[in-house]
């Protein structure tokens, strides 16, 4: 399958979107304008790595090794999940250009 997003892209939550653990209800929530979403456990694992520093590649690597799953399968899931939130405006992906390694 072909990925929708560049693997070198660095995703981060858009301004106005926050992931947090909801102590009162014992669950993770994704907060957005007038919305409270309940990501499933897989989504939570991905979202916790969306920190504006890790690239999609790295996120896939880490998840594949933590859960000992085939890298290719993880890559497909991560790509589809992040692309979905990009479409909703909840995640932004920066694609670093050469020579811009510092940020």
């Amino acid at each position: 399958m072909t990925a929708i997003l560049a693997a070198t892209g660095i995703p981060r939550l858009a301004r106005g979107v926050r992931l947090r653990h909801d102590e009162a209800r014992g669950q993770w929530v994704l907060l957005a304008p007038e919305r409270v979403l309940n990501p499933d456990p897989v989504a939570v694992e991905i979202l916790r790595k969306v920190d504006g520093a890790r690239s999609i590649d790295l996120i896939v690597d880490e998840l594949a090794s933590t859960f000992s799953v085939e890298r290719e399968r993880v890559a497909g899931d991560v790509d589809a999940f992040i692309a979905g939130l990009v479409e909703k405006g909840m995640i932004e992906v920066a694609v670093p250009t050469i020579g811009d390694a510092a940020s």
Partner: protein
Amino acid sequence: MNVIAPAARPDATVRPAPPAPYGMLAELTHRCPLQCPYCSNPVELDRRNVELDTETWLRVFSEAAKLGVLQVHLSGGEPTARRDLEQMIRHCVEVGLYTNLITAGVGVTPERLQSISDAGIDHVQLSFQGATPEITDKVSNYRGAHERKLAVAREVRRLGLPLTVNSVVHRANIHQIPDFIELALQLDAKRIEIAHSQYYGWALRNRGALMPTRDQVFWALDVVEEARVRLKGRLTIDAVVPDYYAKYPKPCMNGWGRQSLNVTPSGKVLPCHAAETIPSLDFWNVREHSLSDVWLNSPAFNAFRGTDWMPDLCRSCERKELDWGGCRCQAMAIAGDAAATDPACHKSPLHAHLLALAEADATGGEDYDYRRYTTPDRTT
């Protein structure tokens, strides 16, 4: 049948603890430069000298976070009239609350927006009383309001903050719904609220000048539906439906004391912003009670929780946990009984009466009784 031994139930009124609330509306002040005739604030506005101080608000936000509130709506009046707004936002961020600013935008400078942004605000909702200067300025009774709002909207986006355009529609601007949607797109808002005026507080006073006709309302529903489909993925449209002409009432607050609470400028805790129109209820104040004490134990919150309080008409109805019997404040206003079935429901014996009221109002004049302080200010 009762299989539970009486000993296990020492108090027959004991009920299961209600689930934690998700949202809190913090009405920081009733002060506002605008005078919208549909304003949902009470006719008796709180003056500055009775407003909660900074310290108390910070405590309330901490208590809210602990209670399980996830999102706080910083509203008013005009919340930016509070100079300690940034301090409150920073505190909310610290305790993990998502902050949403609900502003009219007048009197908010770019410097102020920058500092609100720096404090960590998550989302800004900006009201437009019309889609054109003429109508915004007339409805808000403020010359030049529209231009100032446009400037604020641009600044909000320049700062990278998500923007929602809030529009309250009624007879004088309902025809502008397509223009409101266009405006939201132009301003790069990702979301628009199109709320039909709800008749409490000032809006109830002005019902004759605000009520749209039945034809207008049905036209508006079609326009919104069409735009929703057309703009999917670009603009989220959240609509608050008008219920005078509806068959079923709105699920007011998604149930009384079920998901959210409201703190007034002077510290009263209400199950909804209009609840003070129900004279039999006594509202606890955050000056004397913790938020969780109010949520769990105050008689006002327990008065219409769940379905036990319902009249037979609702209690035997399959929709009782869908619309929760509708709105208590509307039942109060129209039926004179807060525990009646909402007259917006076609099963209510007062439904025809409500419809007749609406139809009569829709042919009324356009003279507004603008929102303002009704008693002279003795504090200055």
